[in-house]
């Protein structure tokens, strides 16, 4: 009896894994790279040149300042769905307990901002005063917001403290979480 049960178990595992193991969890709906360039209209940030690579980067250094930003109108068909915003790029700081953030805020035309999520940059630095690759994500679940977001804004932010918060090659990917 035990052998028969074991055999059933093993045989059934194969189709079960095949049936449930293969699907894309996220469907990418938008991807862009934000980088300062000639003609870039900065907010509170300063556009600087990396002396080694010659690349431009955005720098925030005072408390309460906002930097490089993406505004994105959500297409109608993706509104009300769970969205994942992935941010990746290269960053640098001189503060071990960095206060820098990348904010993802969701808003509607009527109510304004309905949700705000953050990527804590402190968790991204593995060395001081050196460029570090980073990648992180936030999940936006409209059911928690009370209204369906129509617009996303992604921006760098230094809420408090003085430090050098540098960002370059910031890539933002917006994906829709697939139901099942």
């Amino acid at each position, binding site marked *: *009896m035990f052998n028969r049960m074991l055999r059933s178990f093993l045989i059934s595992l194969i189709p079960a894994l095949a049936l449930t193991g293969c699907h894309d969890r996220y469907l990418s709906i938008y991807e862009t790279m934000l980088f300062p360039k000639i003609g870039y209209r900065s907010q509170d940030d300063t556009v600087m040149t990396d002396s080694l690579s010659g690349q431009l980067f955005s720098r925030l250094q005072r408390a309460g300042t906002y930097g490089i930003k993406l505004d994105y109108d959500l297409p109608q068909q993706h509104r009300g769905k769970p969205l994942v915003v992935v941010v990746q790029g290269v960053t640098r700081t001189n503060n071990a307990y960095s206060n820098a953030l990348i904010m993802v805020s969701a808003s509607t035309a009527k109510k304004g901002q309905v949700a705000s999520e953050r990527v804590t940059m402190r968790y991204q630095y593995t060395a001081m005063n050196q460029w570090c690759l980073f990648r992180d994500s936030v999940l936006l679940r409209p059911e928690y917001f009370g209204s369906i977001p129509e617009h996303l804004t992604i921006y760098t932010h230094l809420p408090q403290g003085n430090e050098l918060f540098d960002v370059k090659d910031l890539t933002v990917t917006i994906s829709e979480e697939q139901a099942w």
Partner: protein
Amino acid sequence: MVKGWNSVANTESNFIGRWRPVIRHPLSPFVATVVFIIALVAYYNYIGIWTHLPERPCSIHVSAQTQRASIAQNYYRIDMNFFKPRINNFTGEKGITGSEFPIIYYLAAISYKLFGFNDMYLKLINLLVFSLGVFYLFRLSQLFVRNAVVSCLLVAAVITSPVLLYYSANVSPDTAAFGLVLSAWYFFFRFIHTHQKRQLYLFLIFATLAALIKVVSAMSFGVVLVLVVLDRFGLFKEGDKRYLLPRHLALVLGIVVGSLLTVAWYYYCRVLSAFYGNPPSLMQTMMVSDIETLKDVWQYARNWVFDYYSYETYVLLLCAIVVVFMFLRRANRLLLAITVTYLLGSLCYVYLFLFQFMHHDYYIIAVLPVVVFLLLTLFDLVTRLALRYSQLIVAALVLVMFFNLKESVVKTRKIYVGRFEGKNYFAADYRPYYDLRPRLRERGILWEDKFAVAFDNTLCSSLYFMDQAGFTIGDEASPETVKKILDRPNIKYLVLSDSARFNRLYPNHFENNILMYHRGLIIYKLR
């Protein structure tokens, strides 16, 4: 001697009931098993268990999780001596501490030896033991309702609980103990039916393991003893057969042996903890004796109510109680006796551990056998009524269950997924520690080197993630405690998550000894 699934289902037995005609399964046992396992795997997939299985211990009760996981880690790293479980916190000597029977942690350590360290194996073993119990629950319900679809619905109703599913693929042993209890009950009923010693032994092995892993699971022993007493009084007498339960003496003796083993293990744990000076990871009774504390407990515990089960399941349970009361005379006496005895036992348990329910959602898992047997009593009753009156009654049950489950599964998934999302991390965030270990090894730091970590309010969460032994310094630590820890000659490194606060607590000149930075942590070399 009766053997095999078909023969069990197709033979009249006392506990199945006297009105029941012989019915064949619409599905063969093999197909039913295959369908059930596929359904279970797909169900786990829908809930999100496979997605979160590879994640490191996180979210609610990360402290309890890492404390258990560190036992497996230390078996793997230090010593495979089963009788000397260790945690990463070396407050006492060598980290050795008393723990629940560490069989699951030991199996995980063997997996680490075979495949390399990955805490997913521990979670997977827990999930497998739990799933084994769920499978036996399916088979147990098959014995009564003899319909694979209805059995699947019963199983789904029992396991569609955010707390249960969250801890199923997790480190805490509560769901594994629950799975073993379910397996034990299946073999108990097989024993009643077949009178085979083998089934008795399997019942005793599973029930003893469950009690060893989580002492409150020993309630199943108590329930069986009550059944033996009731049987002696002739409560289950049917026809010319005097007793329903076979081998009363062997059953009682087996339970006594199982209980003695359990008591011996927990006594050993206490001795071990006292001897080595580390806190044991065991359940502790915490009663509530005044009304103010009771209000506090209620204030907190009510937040968990819909994490235990969804609103729809509570309605189902209420309906089950009402229907069983309405048809009390037709209900299966044995199942009813088990439900009532379990209920009384669970009330005693809740009384003894009430304070723990304030912050510990997983304490409810020990009570879930009541839900299992209540629903089993209901489903058995409905099947009996359907056989007597009309099969439409079963069809109605299936329909009601379908819509009930449809709602509760969606809600359960939402709560389950929510528990893993960043903003719902109920404890401190340990993500900076997740990938610190390879960087420490790069710097030539060995796992034998001892660390002090400030600030970490748990016993060993940060140490576990770093894969280092040492000490944690909590928010409330005094300068004397910090000095005592840092003065230990074997402490070589200090990890600070907030150096400014640490400097205020314990003025120092460590800034000259910075070894590295890592995701908001500063690591100092002390000596």
